C-alpha cells in the first residue's frame, strides 16, 4: 500500500491541475473556437502538457540535487516554508502577472504560456511532499545518487503529466463538443482559493 500511494497522489494532483481552467483546457477550447477547428483543440494540448511537465521537472530536479547535499529533514522544513510562502504570494499577487501570450499563440507560445502558468501557480512545488519520499528514498542497500534517482524522478513527472493531460483533454473535448462555454458563467468555481489551500496543506504536511 505504501508503495502505491505516492503515485496515486501524483496522479491525483495531475487531475487537480488539469481541472483548473487556468492550466490549459480553456485555452485549448478557445483556440479551437477561434479557428473553428476541432483538431486545434487537441493539438493545443501537446504544448500545454509539455510546458506543464517542464515546470514540474525543474522542481523535481531541484529537490533531487538538494537531496544529495542537504539533510532530508532540512529540505522538508525549507520546502514547507516555500510552499506556504508561495500560497501567500499566489493569493496576494497571483492576478498581477504580465500577460505575454494571447489568442494568436502558436505551438511555442502555448508551451511557454503553460510553463509560466504552472510555475507561477506553484504547480511543481505543490508536489514536493510526494517527491521527497519518492525520489530521495535511499535504502541501506542502495545509496542515494543522482543517477539512482533519475528513473523514479522521470516516472514521477510522467505520471503527473499523463494524468494532467488526460483530464485536460477530456474536459476540453466535452466543453468543445457538447457543453459550450455558457456554463463558465456559473460553473467556474474559484479554483484559485482551493489551489491556495492545497499549497498551504502541502506545506504543513512537509513541516509536521
Amino acid at each position, binding site marked *: 500500500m505504501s508503495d502505491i500511494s505516492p503515485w496515486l497522489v501524483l496522479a491525483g494532483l495531475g487531475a487537480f491541475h488539469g481541472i483548473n*481552467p*487556468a492550466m490549459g483546457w*480553456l*485555452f485549448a*477550447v*478557445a483556440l479551437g*473556437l*477561434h479557428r473553428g477547428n476541432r483538431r486545434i483543440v487537441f493539438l493545443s494540448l501537446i504544448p500545454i502538457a509539455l510546458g506543464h511537465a517542464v515546470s514540474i521537472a525543474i522542481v523535481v530536479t531541484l529537490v533531487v540535487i538538494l537531496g544529495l547535499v542537504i539533510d532530508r529533514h532540512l529540505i522538508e522544513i525549507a520546502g514547507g516554508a516555500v510552499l506556504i510562502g508561495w500560497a501567500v504570494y499566489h493569493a496576494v499577487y497571483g*492576478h*498581477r*502577472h*504580465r*500577460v*505575454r*501570450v*494571447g*489568442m*494568436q*499563440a502558436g505551438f511555442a507560445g502555448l508551451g511557454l*504560456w503553460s510553463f509560466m502558468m504552472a510555475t507561477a501557480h506553484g504547480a511543481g512545488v505543490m508536489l514536493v511532499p510526494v517527491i521527497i519520499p519518492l525520489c530521495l528514498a535511499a535504502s541501506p542497500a542502495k545509496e542515494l545518487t543522482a543517477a539512482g534517482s533519475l528513473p523514479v524522478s522521470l516516472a514521477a513527472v510522467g505520471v503527473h503529466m499523463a494524468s494532467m493531460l488526460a483530464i485536460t483533454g477530456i474536459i476540453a473535448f466535452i466543453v468543445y463538443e457538447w457543453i459550450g*462555454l*455558457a456554463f*463558465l*458563467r*456559473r*460553473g*467556474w*468555481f*474559484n479554483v*484559485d*482559493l482551493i489551489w491556495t489551500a492545497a499549497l498551504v496543506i502541502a506545506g504543513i504536511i512537509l513541516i509536521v
Partner: protein
Amino acid sequence: MATWQPDPSFYPSPRMAAKAPRENLAYVAAFDPERKKPDAIAVVDVNPNSPSYSQIVGQVDMPNVGDELHHFGWNACSSCLCPNAPHPHVERRYLVVPGLRSSRLHIIDTRPDPRNPKIVKIIEPEEVAEKAGYSRLHTTHCGPEGIYVNALGDAKGNRPGGIFLLDHTSFDVLGQWEMDRGPQELAYDFWWHLGHDTMVTSEWGTPDTFENGLVPEVLLGSKYGRKLHFWDLHKRKHLQEIDFGEEHQLVFELRPAHDPTKAYGFVGCVISLKDLSSSIWTWYRDGDKWAVKKIIEIPAEPADPELLPPVLQGFKAVAPLVTDIDLSMDDKYLYVSCWGTGDMIQYDVSDPFEPKETGRVRIGGIVSRTSHPAAKNGALNGGPQMVEISRDGKRVYFTNSLYGAIDTQFYPEGIDGWMVKLKVSKKGGIKFDKKFFVEWPKGHRPHQVRLEGGDCSSDSYCYP
C-alpha cells in the same frame, strides 16, 4: 473580495452578453464648466416600470472642484474570463473615474447600494505622474492585465500621451503600459482586438491645444491628431501607424468589432479641412498589415451665418462634428453622434465596407435647436454626443455636452444639459422614448453614460 462564482455580469462571448437582463440604472459623468462646484457621477433610473423613471436618483460628488469628469469605466468586465489571463472571480463593482483636467483618479464603489455609490479611493495626480509619467486622464478599459487608463499628456502635460495600468483590486498604479511606443505621441482613445493580440489607439492633441478650446491655427494647420496606431497588445510594442492625411483632423472614438474573431473596427474623424464633413472609417486586416477605408462621409449643412457661432460663420455651414460613435453588441448597428447638426444616425454595418443608413433622429444642433416631446423649454442646445447602447441593442442613451472649453466655441451661450433615450426597432430604425428626457440640473453638464452590468463600449470578449 474574491467570490466563489464569476461575476454574473461577465459573459464569455458577445452573443451571450446580448441576452443579458436589461439595465435598471445608468451612471452618468457630470461636470461643472465653471469649475466652481464639484463634478459628480449621477445615477439615472432607466427602468420604465419605476416611479422615478427618467430621474436622477442618486449622486456622488467629487471631493474637489475642476476635475472635468469625462469618460469612465469598470474595474472588471467580461475579459476577466479570457483563457490566457483569467481573473473570473473579481467583482464588477467599482467605477474608475478620471478627471480629464485634474488628472485625479476616483474609485467609486457601486455596492452594496447601486443607487448610492461611494468614493473609496482617490489617486492624486502627483502619484499618477510619478509612477506612470502621465497626466490628463481620459479613457479607461478593463482588460487582460488589469485596468488600462489612457492619458493625453505626459507628467508635465506635454507629449507623449499614452496608457498606464492599474491593479484591478488594489487600484495601485502599476506604471506605463508602452514598452516601445515607436513614433506615437498623441493620444485620444484606445481599445483592442483580444482575438488578434492588437491594441489600437487614436489621436487628439496635447493639453495646451485643447484645454482652452480648439486652437484654429492648430486645426487649420492640420496639427491635431490624424493617425491610428496599432500595437502588439502583449509585447506592448508599436507595430504600425496609419495617417489619414492632411485633410483629416481629430481621429477619435474607436469601436472594434465585439466578436473576437473579426479583425475590423470603426473610427470617427471629426472634421475634414476641405469641406467640414465628418467621416467614419473602417480599419481592417489586409494580409499581414492593418489598413483603413473611409466608408461614410457626412456633409456639412449650409446655414445662415447669423445663426452660426464665430468659428463657423466664415464657412456659412454647420459642421456635423461626429464626436462619438458606438457599435451594437452583435456588430450590426453603428450609431453616429453628429454634435454639430444634431443628428443621431443609425447605420447597418453588417458589411463593414457597405454601411446602410437605417435610422436618424434630430435633437438640439447648432442651427436646428430641435426639441424633444418631453422637453419643457422647447429649443434645445447641445447635440447628440456620448452615446451608449444596451447589451441587447434595444435601447440607446445619449447626452449633449462635449468638453467644457469646446462647448462654448460651438454653442456660445453655453449648454443646458439633457439625456435622452432611443428605442431601436427589431429591423433597424430608431425613435425617441417620449417619456425619457432628463433635464440636467443647472450647473452641471452630462458626458459619458455607463449602464449597470455593462454596455456596448465597456466589455471585451475572448470567445466568439
